[in-house]
């Protein structure tokens, strides 16, 4: 009996997710292209249902966070004290959120802990930009020479005092921003759009199967 059902089960495990993915993808595509009420309603239903799937995925993620950090605490790995703080904070916010996400306690935690910490983390960007520029503006290739040259001209052009040196610098800045920079960005956007379409079509045709950890066999 097992010999009969096992290949069937293995085949179903591979083809069922693919069939569902292709069917759903085709439905959403039809929803986009055609203004038919029944197709639109079905498409809207499945798009809204992804919120439920995302909710379960979030639950899985939270379990993963707790497992990683509890294991770190038990095994006394590096930084296990921070893991205690993380797990304790997670439990506190979880308990505080039981009355609902709009409760006063959760609001206070977000206003006085979450947002200030977020602002503090992103405030590091100002300093990191400077150190990244210091490391990035090294002349290691032809591309980096162009990068440095463009950066210097644009920086100088942005400064009002540069106009007193020569009118060429602001003009060079405007030319760099309006011509090669804009052209490059548009080229990247076109390329990214094509790449996105290609990725979607590969999933629709079943060549890429990210939902089952696989895809077409390698060459």
């Amino acid at each position: 009996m097992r010999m009969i059902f096992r290949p069937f089960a293995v085949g179903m495990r591979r083809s069922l997710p693919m069939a569902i993915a292709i069917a759903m993808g085709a439905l959403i595509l039809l929803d986009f292209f055609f203004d038919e009420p029944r197709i639109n309603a079905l498409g809207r239903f499945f798009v809204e249902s992804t919120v439920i799937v995302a909710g379960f995925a979030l639950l899985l993620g939270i379990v993963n966070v707790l497992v990683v950090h509890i294991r770190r605490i038990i095994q006394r790995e590096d930084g296990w004290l921070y893991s205690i703080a993380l797990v304790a904070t997670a439990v506190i916010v979880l308990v505080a959120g039981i009355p609902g996400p709009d409760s006063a306690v959760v609001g206070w935690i977000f206003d006085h802990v979450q947002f200030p910490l977020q602002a503090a983390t992103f405030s590091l960007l100002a300093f990191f930009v400077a150190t990244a520029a210091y490391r990035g503006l090294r002349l290691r290739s032809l591309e980096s020479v162009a990068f440095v040259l463009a950066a210097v001209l644009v920086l100088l052009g942005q400064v009002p005092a540069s106009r007193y040196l020569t009118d060429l610098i602001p003009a060079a800045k405007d030319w760099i921003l309006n011509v090669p920079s804009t052209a490059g960005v548009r080229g990247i956007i076109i390329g990214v759009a094509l790449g996105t379409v290609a990725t979607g079509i590969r999933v629709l045709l079943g060549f890429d199967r990210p939902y089952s950890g696989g895809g077409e066999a390698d060459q």
Partner: protein
Amino acid sequence: MRFLAEILGNLGIGAQQALALALLLPFFPLLLLIRRRIRETGRPPLRAISGYAALQEYLGQSAESGQAAHVSMGTGGIGTTVTAESLAGLTVLQHVAEYSEATGLKTIATVSDPSLFPAALDVMRQAYEARGYALAFDPTSVRFISPNRAAYAAGVMDILAHAGVGCSLMVGNFGDEFLLMAEVGGRNEVRQVGGTTSALILPFVYASVDETLLGEEIFAAGAYLRQRASHLASLAAQDWLRTGIILAIVVGAVLRSLV
């Protein structure tokens, strides 16, 4: 043209949908035809992308030195507007997962969006199960950090600073938080490859990592790392369509100037 517009209008297809259709319709047959040709005649030559060559080199160096490899698939997820970028990161993870299984390289994959977590976990597990080493798979090698970008960056910064990471591969959708992660990696002498599609973030990526994958180069991961026929075919199809778009722009500009 008016007749075509009438037919499309009767079908409920507006101008935006018609443009999308004009892009989508040629892609299907091109992809299938070129894929078939590749399977018959073999792999076509690809231009060298230093990011992918460096990625392979950094993985090897980390494996040899006993350090871990960090893979980030960005702060996007599946089912969002940046799904394609997240899938590109997943392709990179698949390659790293199989390399890890074969060499014993420790991999730490971090995700921000919860929708990407099960997919990443499955990719890592499949790499071990395919070779019959399911018990060797460590489920905590894939770590969900946080959907909040600042918290995600903080989590990755900690991993890059304290987890004995030798190389960091960050391919996907990123915002400003990329600079935070890449800088910490740089200070800890972690070899880094970064790739994203956002034109606003690419300068940060270029300045802060060792090798960059610019824009659409991240979508070529399957072709360069996995040698998959469908990925090679879609690269070729993209090239054909790009040529068509360029010709259309030039012809349109000329016609507009003449009229």
